Every structure is written in structure tokens, then in C-alpha cells.
């Protein structure tokens, strides 16, 4: 799709023509309606004491924000979100990378395997949540049944932060490993074969080829998946919710209530504090941007370092 710049003929249209703008308009119109407007509206709502049941009680300035910052439940939820993000994303991307590397070789039924890894991703997340709810049930679950069968102690998955995070991460990873693997695979296919051939001639082992050649060459793609995972991880909602069978408080002591769940709880349940929920949403928005930027720089640095 990338032609050299000079090769494209100059457009024959008059400079004032509206046609090009019309072509790009659908995205901007949709973005304005479903992206920009809610963003600005939410900012406005976040400055008000507004209840969904009970109505708007007027302008309160930054009160909602100061309350959020002193709310222990907010920090607990934020900690859970980051914790779950790390526990889920790090193995997820590493496994995806490894899987992509395997799929990049010559295999029988290549397409079947490549499509197969994507299947979990197109399964409805609610269905995944319900099935995993049974698999990780505390008393009569599949995993505990297997553990019992081999004589190990059963695990009460919801009884502690550690076990709950593990189970939720398995759910998240099961869904997203294949997706990331396919993206990595696409990037790997773009690496010229002769690079590997010369590396092999120079005596580089497969592992060395992978770390010194493949990983640096797909660095932009790794960055992309990390940013996408960051956004997804910060908004984690359905998996922990269904893991706790639809209970929004995320465990008896809120051990796995994520920030999105807490926003939902304060906005649509509790005292239906629309304004407070909006303030938290904006803080989450800011946190995602900051966190994505930090990730971006950190990863760019380490991946670059490994290519030297």
C-alpha cells in the first residue's frame, strides 16, 4: 500500500473541493458523537453532585476529585487493577511471543493452527466468564476436582487475593494470547528470510536468532500490543465481575474489585453518584494515558537495548 511519494499523481480536484473531507468525515462524525462528546460531557458531570436517582444537586467544583483521592476503596481498586494488569499481561505477551515464534515455522495445517489460536478471542466474554466461573468454583469446580483427584489440596479461589488474581488472569490470558500471537506472527512474517539465513550461516542458534533478530525487528508491534493491553487491562471489568458471579463488590473484602467495577458500583448502584463516577472515569482516563506513556518509553528503551 505504500507507494513512493513522487509516484502519486497530483489530485486534479480544485483545492476548495469538499470531497476529501467527506471521505474522512464518517470517522470524525462518529468519533465526535461517541468519543469526544461523552468525554467532554463526563468532565462537566464530574464537577457536579449528580445522582441518577434523585437528580442533579448542582455544581460542586473539584469536590468529587478530592473525595476520590481520599477514598480508600478507590486506591484499593486501583491497586487491584494494576496488580491484575501485571499478573495477566506479562505472561500473556511472553506466551504470545513464544506461540507466534512456533507458528512462524513450517507446520502442517498451518492455517488451521493460526486460526485456532484466535478462537478464544471471538468467543463471547460472558460465555468465557460463566464457564470459567464453573472451572474455578470454590467447592465443586473442575480445577478443584482435578486437584482432588491427584491428591492435592483444593484451592478456595475466591478466598484470597493471590488465588483470585491467578484465576482471573487465566481467564484474561486465555482470551488474549491468541490475538496477540497473531499480531506478532504478522510482524514476524514481514522480516526478510535472508536475515535468518545469514544469521544461521554465522552460527547463531535459534534462541539467539529469536532474541537478537526477531524481537528487535518487531519492536513497534510489541509496543502496539503493550499499549492495547494497557488500555484493556486498565478497563478490566467483565472477567472479575463474572468470576464473582456478577457481584460488583469483587470479593468479600474487595480483593479483586477493579477500578471499572468500582466506578460502576458508585455510578449505577450505591447512591447512584453520576458525578463521582464521572470524576473517577476522568482520573482513570488520565492514569491510562500516563501509564501507556511510561510503558511506551520503558519498553522502547529495553527493546532497543537488546538490539545492540
Amino acid at each position: 500500500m505504500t507507494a513512493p511519494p513522487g509516484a502519486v499523481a497530483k489530485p486534479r480536484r480544485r483545492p476548495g473541493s469538499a470531497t476529501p473531507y467527506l471521505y474522512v468525515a464518517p470517522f470524525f462524525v462518529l468519533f465526535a458523537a461517541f468519543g469526544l462528546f461523552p468525554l467532554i460531557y463526563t468532565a462537566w458531570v464530574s464537577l457536579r453532585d449528580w445522582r441518577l436517582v434523585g437528580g442533579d444537586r448542582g455544581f460542586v467544583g473539584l469536590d468529587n476529585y478530592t473525595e476520590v483521592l481520599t477514598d480508600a476503596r478507590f486506591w484499593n481498586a486501583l491497586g487491584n487493577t494494576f496488580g491484575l494488569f501485571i499478573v495477566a499481561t506479562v505472561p500473556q505477551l511472553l506466551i504470545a511471543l513464544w506461540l507466534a515464534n512456533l507458528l512462524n515455522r513450517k507446520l502442517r495445517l498451518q492455517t488451521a493452527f493460526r486460526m485456532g489460536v484466535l478462537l478464544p478471542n471471538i468467543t463471547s466474554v460472558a460465555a468465557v466468564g460463566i464457564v470459567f466461573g464453573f472451572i474455578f468454583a470454590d467447592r465443586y469446580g473442575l480445577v478443584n476436582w482435578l486437584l482432588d483427584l491427584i491428591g492435592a489440596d483444593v484451592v478456595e479461589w475466591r478466598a484470597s487475593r493471590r488465588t483470585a488474581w491467578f484465576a482471573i488472569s487465566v481467564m484474561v490470558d486465555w482470551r488474549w494470547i491468541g490475538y496477540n500471537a497473531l499480531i506478532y506472527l504478522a510482524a514476524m512474517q514481514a522480516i526478510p528470510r535472508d536475515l535468518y539465513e545469514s544469521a544461521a550461516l554465522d552460527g547463531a542458534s535459534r534462541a539467539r536468532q529469536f532474541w537478537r533478530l526477531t524481537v528487535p525487528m518487531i519492536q513497534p508491534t510489541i509496543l502496539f500490543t503493550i499499549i492495547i493491553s494497557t488500555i484493556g487491562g486498565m478497563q478490566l471489568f467483565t472477567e472479575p465481575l463474572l468470576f464473582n458471579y456478577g457481584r460488583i463488590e469483587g470479593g468479600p473484602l474487595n480483593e479483586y474489585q477493579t477500578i471499572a467495577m468500582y466506578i460502576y458500583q458508585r455510578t449505577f448502584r450505591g447512591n447512584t453518584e453520576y458525578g463521582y463516577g464521572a470524576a473517577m472515569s476522568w482520573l482513570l482516563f488520565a492514569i491510562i494515558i500516563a501509564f501507556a506513556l511510561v510503558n511506551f518509553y520503558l519498553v522502547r528503551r529495553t527493546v532497543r537495548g537488546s538490539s545492540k
Partner: protein
Amino acid sequence: MGAIRSRLRGFTTAALVLGLVLGAAACSAEDDKSGDGKTTVTIQWFGSPGFDQAIKDFQAANPDIVVKSENRGQLKDFQPLLVQWLATGSSQLGDVIMLEEGTLLEFLQEPSKWANLLDLGAASLKDTYLPYKWENGFTADKSKLVGLGTDIGGLAMCYRSDLFAKAKLPTDRESVSKLWPTWEAYEQQGLKFKAANTGATWIDSATSIMQPYIMQNSDTWFYDRSNNFILDSNPKVREAYDYGLKLAGEGLTSKLVRWTPDWDAAFKNAAFATVPCAAWGTGVISERAGDAGKGKWDIATIPGGSGNWGGSYLAIPEQSKKKDAAYKLLTYLTGKAGHLAEFKEKGGMPSSIPALDDPAFADAKNEYFSNAPVGRIFGASVKTLKPIYLGPKHQQLWETILEPAMQAAEKGSLGADAAFTKAVTDGKKLATG
């Protein structure tokens, strides 16, 4: 490249068209009347109220009204949707809405979104309801009636006679009722049961005794009558909490979380011998224990005397454009015939006095529960009922704060005092927020 470009162009057009269609669909208002002059009334409910037959009967008697019956799953899923729909005036909101007792109390604080049933002619129905049920449908100033009662809970103790036989305890309901006049006696029998090593526990969860115990022994729970938050100073709640955790400490509970798949499976596996049950609870048990449990369950009186646990209401949103037809349906379902049909279908106990007195209820036996005379047992449990004041956020305070905290204490992930303190802190925030 040309092909890609033209495909992209096609895609943009498609996206634009799709956007327009979606927009138009969202704007098209629902018609009040369909072409044949019939009015469509939508009723939205949760749980298992057993409206199916009653709606069919209503339909047959009112051919000019078409009833659309929508099952909205569990209460905890329906409640947030309801809040959103009411706040935005959504067209998805039905014309007759089932509200749980606790949910209704919350809406009574902000009743503007609900129709006043007195304006629709409900005043004359006063004497047909249990006074407790009738009073609870009103706003604080008694000027607006928001909901009319469907079922009422009542209280009893359901037990598995096969496990009782295994533990050499009496199995017939009269003798079992005599085993536990008080909660202390109930605990003593539990210890005896445990000593018999049947492989099952005495009760499903420490939290299961909270509702019955408090409903029997206190006239307040989280709030006093002026809606002040009193969880930290209400002695009966703490007493029930400590009693439940004492049972757990003695190894008498299964430490299950109610309303989860594990809890459901535990009924099938006969993992516990007793569970306090309201009338609607008989349906909950038979659904979960399945055919294998038929004839093994029975019902005795509950320790500690009479009380009520739960029950629901029907209400009409102010935004409904079909209030008259909706009111017809509502009064049918909350009237004698509706109550009796619901009782027959799912076991919910009538709150309507004529229905309670009707032999169809009063002499009813439940086949699943070894032909227990449910009409007599549950009927007796509400006759001397002392109403308890629950207050606006009761349901959420219980479900999302006190019950989870108690579960944490039961499982030992937090001490009993610390868990209670957490519940008080979180509860205060919710109640005063």
C-alpha cells in the same frame, strides 16, 4: 490499490448507512397501540415469581390487552438496569415492574419516577392486604402508594429428613419442630448432628441465619425510623452476627456463598441438613436439589418464633403511557386469583388476605417437601408478624456490605470484629452518601 480504495469507499458508505439506520431505529417511538386496537403492556420481573399462569389467565379475561412478560434474571442484575432506565426515561422500561422489598424502599425516597397507585384507584384495596405489606408500599408522608404486594416471605426451617435419619435425629416435622424452640437449642442439635459424622454440615452458611434472626428479634436493622445509620449500635444485629459466626466456629456451617453455583451444587450433593427458608425459598430449594431431592426435604417451624423474610411488590413507572392497562394487570397479579396462581406455580406466599384464607393456600401441601402443610406452616408464621423497618438502602447494605464482610469472617480471611468494623465504615458511607 484501486480495488482496495473502492472497497474502502464501499465500507465508508456502509458505515454511514449503518450509522443512520441505527440512529433512526433509536429514535422511532414505540406505538401505544398496535393496528388491531390492542394495548401491549410489558411486565418486567426477576427471580421466580411464577407469573406465567396468572398472566395467561389475565390474557384470557382481557383480550384487548397483550401482555409482554420479560424475565430480567436476578435481582442484582436487574436493579442497576432499572436505575439507568428510570434516570434516562428509556423506552426499554416496562409498564409494570417487579420490585423487591429492599429496592422499593430505596425508590420510596425518590418517588417522582413512579405512578401514584392511589390515583389509579388503589385506595379501596386497603383491607385486602396484610397491613404490614400495604403500609410498606407508601412514601413516608403516606400521600403516595408506589407498590402493591405480590408475595410475602414468612419463615420456616427446611431440613433434609434423610440426613436427620442418618444422624439418628427425629425425622417427622412435629418432632423436629420441637427440637429447636430457640436458636440455642438449634445450635445444640447442630452439635449433636455434627457428632454423628454424616459427612454433611448442619447449615449452609453463617449468613443464612441473619435475616430470620434479625427479622424475629428486632424492629430495625441498618436504620432507625428516622433513617439514621445504626448498624454499629444495633445490638440485635451484632447478636445475630456473633451467633452465626459462632456456628461457623463450631464447624456447623458449610461456609458457602449463597446464590452461587457452588451453593446450587451443594443442594444437589446434600452438603447440609438445614436451611432457614421463606415461602419463596421452597421453590429455590426444589429447583436446585432437583428430582433426586424430592421427598427428602421437609419443613419444620423455625427456631425463635414468627417473622418475615423478603417478598416483592409491583409498581408502575410514571413514564408509562399505558397506566390504565398496566394497572389492570398489576391489580390482577396482586389480587386473590393472581396470588393463588403464583403460589401454585412457584410457592410464593400470598400477601392478600382473601388468598391467604382461601383453602387453595390454607390447606396446601407441598409434594416436593414430603407433603408438608406449607399453607399452615407459613400462614402461622406471619399471623403475629411484627413489622421491621428496613430503610432506603437496606438491600445493598446487606448484599454488598454486611453479607460479604460476614463471609470473609466466616472463611477466616478477616477477624469477626475487623470485618464488622469494615461493614460499619463502608455502610456508613453508603447510607449517608
